């Protein structure tokens, strides 16, 4: 793949996942503010969440979008502020994306399944 194609696709993935995240984050912020009223407890959260198919799908999408979006952002910081040139940087970024996706999906499963 040419550098031009790769850079364009990375930029597009960043913006597309941003659009998805914009919706997810609005929902998430509203949920947080609603849930936090009167204090948080595990019983409360898990009581509402367990077995909820809609929510697990929502958070799975949220996790996947963030697993694309955050690493690409960190990649830009690595290039510009850490001066990290070369192929190793992109492999590390890819590993971060995988780690976030796995940890996030596990968390979604933990809360909603």
């Amino acid at each position, binding site marked *: 793949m040419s550098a031009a194609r790769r850079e364009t696709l990375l930029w597009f993935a960043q*913006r597309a996942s*941003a*659009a998805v*995240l*914009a919706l997810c*984050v*609005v929902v*998430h*912020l509203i949920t*947080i*503010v*609603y849930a*936090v*009223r009167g*204090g*948080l*407890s*595990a*019983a409360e*959260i*898990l009581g509402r969440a367990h077995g909820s198919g809609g929510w697990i799908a929502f958070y799975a999408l949220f996790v996947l979008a*963030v697993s694309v979006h*955050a690493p690409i*952002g*960190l990649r830009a*910081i690595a290039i510009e502020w850490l001066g990290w040139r070369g192929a190793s940087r992109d492999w590390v970024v890819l590993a971060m994306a995988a*780690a*976030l996706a796995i*940890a*996030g999906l*596990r*968390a*979604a*499963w*933990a*809360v909603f399944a």
Partner: protein
Amino acid sequence: MIDMKNDYRSRNHSGWWAFLVHRLSGLALALFLPLHFWALGQALHGEAALDGFLRWAERPPVKFAEWILVLLLAAHLGGGVRLLMLEFLPWREWHKTLLACAAAVAIAAGLAFALAL
């Protein structure tokens, strides 16, 4: 030959501040996420494990940190929507207005969270 670099004097304009807030908030959120996923994953070990974490999170310094995170998330959201509009919509002289809207979103979210506590 070494090039001379810019300093704060050339950076003191709204577009630069918008960028800095957006980048630093994104970095903070990216560093927070693994902790967030770990904490929620505690539910796998049963309700008591998650409750233990939530009890710890009731402490004021932690609640304050949570409030900061909500602010950062809302700021990153507002700044991000501003960028999407600047990059995808026909160009207009509205980057400062959009920044004001982004700041308003962040403040509103911060207030809502603080009042809900």
